[in-house]
């Protein structure tokens, strides 16, 4: 039985190297100096929190772990306070290990190729402009709550064939799973249950009335023996697409706007040279990577010379890897025309984000449409920027003043 007791508050961190905690408010507000301190200490650090957890701090250590599916399992992908039994088909293929990973991933890849994303682009531009219409004359806006938040959720709802008007429901589930769920098992279970019930009803509707969306696509998919997927697999993959498709890109768009609000020179350059936006998006992805995944150590090994023991989790911080000065010159600076940029924002190895082409397209379109219509904006000194906690990092409140400063 799962632990249903109240979530425990975490004591504040005083020793980052030996007792790190990625849910600590100091980390949530500004993780960058913390990562530098950890990286200076060791390529792999350890905390007793979360029932034992390592964190690789260098790009090389992150790459080693991401490519080592023998010692590191994806059956748990969030570092949490509890380790309940692993659910079957939790969210394939992100929760799958070889050899079952590959066929599950291959099912999802064709709908997310760059060419498939091109077809979605006009709808994305319309979504961005509809959102901008809603606040452009107000002179101020919370750009996270009224812009970045709704772009990816409407895109993935469109692809899944579920109502875009249910966006707030989906966003709440994601918050329960990826943030509150780190410390509160009940919240996570409740959201997973509600999400599964929602998709079960959608599947039922499509049995009599097939559609051409991703739900029907998965219902019609065959495994490598030519058999339809088990219902638990269809549900798991649908949960994954919804969970992975929302606050990840919401965060990336929000962080990008946050950067541009504070950096007029970069903003002016992108307005003057819109052709640079795709390159700038890569740099913003590197510098403000939203997603930190997890692995579970299932066999003892060493990483960058550091022994790691089975039974511990790994906080696989692609964001920290992307700030490694050994890999990126001026790693702590945003260089919007950085040409060599082997960043790991979408992961490395077999679990490369299936939605990376979608996320890139959304970011490019969201910035292009925003800069076209709102070339001048800045942080509202009367407001506060707040950041999400845990698995995905991005601004949740982003108060802006629109127009030229008086």
């Amino acid at each position: 039985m799962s632990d249903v007791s109240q979530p425990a508050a975490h004591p504040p961190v005083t020793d980052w190297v030996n007792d790190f905690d990625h849910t600590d408010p100091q980390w949530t507000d500004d993780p960058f100096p913390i990562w530098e301190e950890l990286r200076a200490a060791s390529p792999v650090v350890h905390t007793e929190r979360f029932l034992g957890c390592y964190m690789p701090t260098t790009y090389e250590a992150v790459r080693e772990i991401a490519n080592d599916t023998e010692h590191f399992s994806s059956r748990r992908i969030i570092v949490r306070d509890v380790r309940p039994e692993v659910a079957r088909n939790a969210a394939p293929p992100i929760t799958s290990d070889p050899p079952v990973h590959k066929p599950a991933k291959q099912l999802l890849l064709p709908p997310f190729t760059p060419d498939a994303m091109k077809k979605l682009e006009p709808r994305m531009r319309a979504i961005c402009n509809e959102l901008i219409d809603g606040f452009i004359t107000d002179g101020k806006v919370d750009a996270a709550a009224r812009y970045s938040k709704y772009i990816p959720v409407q895109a993935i709802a469109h692809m899944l064939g579920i109502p875009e008007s249910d966006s707030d429901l989906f966003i709440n589930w994601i918050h329960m799973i990826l943030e509150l769920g780190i410390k509160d098992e009940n919240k996570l279970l409740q959201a997973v249950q509600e999400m599964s019930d929602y998709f079960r009803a959608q599947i039922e509707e499509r049995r009599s009335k097939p559609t051409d969306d991703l739900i029907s696509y998965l219902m019609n998919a065959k495994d490598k023996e030519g058999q339809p997927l088990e219902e638990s697999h269809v549900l798991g993959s649908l949960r994954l697409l919804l969970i992975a498709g929302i606050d990840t890109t919401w965060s990336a768009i929000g962080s990008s706007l946050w950067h541009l609000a504070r950096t007029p020179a970069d903003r002016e350059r992108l307005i003057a040279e819109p052709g640079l936006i795709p390159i700038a998006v890569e740099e913003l992805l590197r510098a403000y990577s939203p997603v930190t995944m997890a692995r579970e150590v299932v066999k003892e090994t060493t990483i960058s010379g550091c022994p790691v023991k089975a039974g511990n989790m790994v906080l696989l911080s692609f964001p920290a890897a992307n700030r490694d000065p050994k890999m990126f010159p001026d790693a702590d600076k945003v260089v919007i025309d950085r040409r060599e940029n082997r960043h790991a924002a979408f992961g490395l190895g077999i679990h490369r984000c299936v939605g990376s082409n979608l996320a890139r397209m959304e970011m490019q379109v969201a910035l292009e449409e925003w800069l076209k219509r709102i070339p001048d904006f800045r942080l509202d000194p009367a407001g506060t920027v707040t950041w999400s906690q845990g698995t995905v990092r991005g601004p949740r409140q982003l108060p802006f003043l629109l127009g030229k400063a008086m």
Partner: protein
Amino acid sequence: MAERLKVHVDPDKCQGHARCKALAPELFELDEYGNAHEAGDGTVPPGLEGKAWLAKSNCPEIAIDVIEE
């Protein structure tokens, strides 16, 4: 005379990040899964050498070779 370049994608390493296709669309193609391979026999036409090196230096999986012949 300038060296002739060829690009090659290691299919075992490629994970479909598609950076090569975005940066050098003349030199790479994607399959139905979005995984990359070199266009034709990988020969880099004159003038596209810079794009070949750019694709190589942006591949997160280090899956691209640029071969100087």
